[in-house]
């Protein structure tokens, strides 16, 4: 187990190296070279040359990459090409925090709804209820986020005028009852993005829980529990439920991936100033150092989350011998 974790951790820098080098070369290969992006409207060759030297863009790609890498490992991702005077880290981290809050809440909701749905489907396996639940969740997953957001904004933001049509105002809001009693409630800006984020996620959690609950129901220890004369409720909640939740740990990584990719549309469409929208804008305006930093951070988060999930799985379920399961 220990050796396995070390092996996987050693793998992380390799992935990050490949990703950052790939992104770096791609970025230098793209149209509108970084110099002209920085210069904006200025077309004086002297100024362009000056920028080229200041930013070290006159050397070849490998040298540039090594220079970038040296700083990046110290947490310095350079200066934004577009928003001059701001370091990339300064721009990225506040936005990441917004996206992380949104993403975490979305994950919690996905699991909170997906798990009971999966257990319900397993409980009614064989009747029409099971395929109805899974089918409905599959349908929700099939509606592209791009398609669902404009109607949601129109319905709740304009037609009923209940919710703000976009933006971000923190997680909590205060609801004043009679101007005296303050009750903290989730900020109304959250509702539409959370619906858009969570709808596609339910089915994968529910399906996994369903399959795993069906399998656990056939296990010997469940039969023993029933044979001991435990009530069906006790069997389900004490023995089946905890064991069928184990595989869920492995989908946390996938779920995170969904949240990150969802952030690209949800934040862009709803004007939330998070990392998804920022990445999109950086790609469109070719703000290369920002793109590099976000891609590398995304990839690091991906690899780390998957690794953590595997390790956690090994801890919770001693039956899994991770070390030997790799061919």
């Amino acid at each position, binding site marked *: 187990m220990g050796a396995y974790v070390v092996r996987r951790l050693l793998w992380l820098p390799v992935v990050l190296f490949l990703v950052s080098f790939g992104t770096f070369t791609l970025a230098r290969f793209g149209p509108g070279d970084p110099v002209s992006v920085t210069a904006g409207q200025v077309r004086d060759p002297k100024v362009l040359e000056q920028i080229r030297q200041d930013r070290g863009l006159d050397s070849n790609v490998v040298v540039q990459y090594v220079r970038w890498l040296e700083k990046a490992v110290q947490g310095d991702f350079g200066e934004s090409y577009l928003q001059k005077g701001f370091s990339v880290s300064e721009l990225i981290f506040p936005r990441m925090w917004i996206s992380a809050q949104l993403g975490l809440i979305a994950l919690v909701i996905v699991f909170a709804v997906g798990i009971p749905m999966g257990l319900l489907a397993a409980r009614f396996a064989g009747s029409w209820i099971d*395929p109805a639940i899974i089918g409905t969740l599959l*349908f929700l997953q*099939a509606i*592209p986020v791009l398609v669902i957001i*404009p109607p949601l904004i129109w319905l709740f933001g304009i037609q009923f005028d209940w919710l703000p049509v976009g933006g971000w105002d923190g997680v909590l809001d205060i609801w004043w009852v009679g101007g005296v009693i303050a009750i903290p409630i989730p900020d109304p800006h959250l509702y539409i993005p959370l619906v858009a984020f969570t709808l596609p996620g339910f089915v994968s959690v529910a399906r996994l829980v369903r399959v795993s609950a069906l399998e656990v129901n056939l296990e010997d220890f469940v039969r023993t529990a029933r044979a001991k004369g435990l009530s069906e409720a006790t069997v389900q909640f004490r023995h089946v439920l905890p064991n069928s939740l184990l595989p869920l740990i492995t989908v946390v990584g996938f779920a995170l*991936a969904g949240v990150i990719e969802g952030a*690209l549309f949800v934040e862009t469409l709803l004007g939330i100033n998070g990392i998804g929208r920022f990445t999109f804008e950086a790609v469109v305006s070719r703000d290369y150092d920002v793109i590099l930093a976000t891609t590398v951070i*995304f*990839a690091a988060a991906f690899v780390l989350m998957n690794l953590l999930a595997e390790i956690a799985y090994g801890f919770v379920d001693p039956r899994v011998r991770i070390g030997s399961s790799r*061919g």
Partner: protein
Amino acid sequence: MTASAAAEGAPQRVEAGTSEWRLVLGRLRRKRLAMISLVIISVIYGAGILAPLLAPYPPTQTNLDRPVEGPSRDHLLGTDRLGRDELSRAMYSSRTTLIVTTAVVLSGGLVIGNTLGLLAGYRGGWVDTLIMRVGDVFSSLPSLVMLILINATLGPRVIGWTRWVEGHTPFDGLVASGFPSYMLVFSALSLFFWAGTARVIRSQVLQLRERDYIMAAESLGASPRRVILQHLLPNVSFLIILSLSATLGSIAGSEIVLTWFGVGVQPPAASFGAMLFEGSGTRTFQASPHLLLVPGVIVTLLLFAFALLGDALNDAIRGR
């Protein structure tokens, strides 16, 4: 769903490939949802194939006298901002989806994923390690972000190269036909969609490699090429179909998303992504919902059908 049903299916595994196919197809035919989703997919893809014959208008024919009209007798699904017929646009968009999904499944899944999966599983050793590690890298990346980046940076270059080709060879009208953007979208998607297939195939091959008939073939002196093509390939063909059908939906979805972001299939070629983009403003939706609903409903139906079909195929192959 029950264990007994799975057990009934199990002994059939020993029989020859063709009968197993028939068995699975038979099981599939009994699933009503699978049949419905096949019909939906066939209708949408059929409309794409037959678009040049069936579309009431050319997809790029504008009519600035009648922009953003709702459904009418002349335009069954209304018109877009340039007065182009939405129905015709939608049919040609299906054609784009059809082309992209088929191309990616054939190249990324069938050729790259399949070959590498077979090689990794059969050869083992460093070949296996190399292939699977590269696959790990690709699947540990936020693919959508990478796809947007690749398309955004390489797009203009590819168009530039195609222009050069047009200028130096008798081929003409390549750029105008949207060919370079199709090629780019499909190569970029292939890059990210082979790893899943390769992994599934590999793990199956790892099991098959220990079977007696493989050993028999090897001891009779069959070359690795022969073992892979004659003995392993037919026995993993099921998994290939399954894993490919599971990716169809996300390939179609990715193309739509890339085009929505403006880095996928380039105008004037029709794509659901471009149609959705035009209809996605809140004000636009309020004033003329058909701009979003026409492509939105079709795309949702298509993705839903792919998901249901993938589920049903999965069940059918596992003997349910």
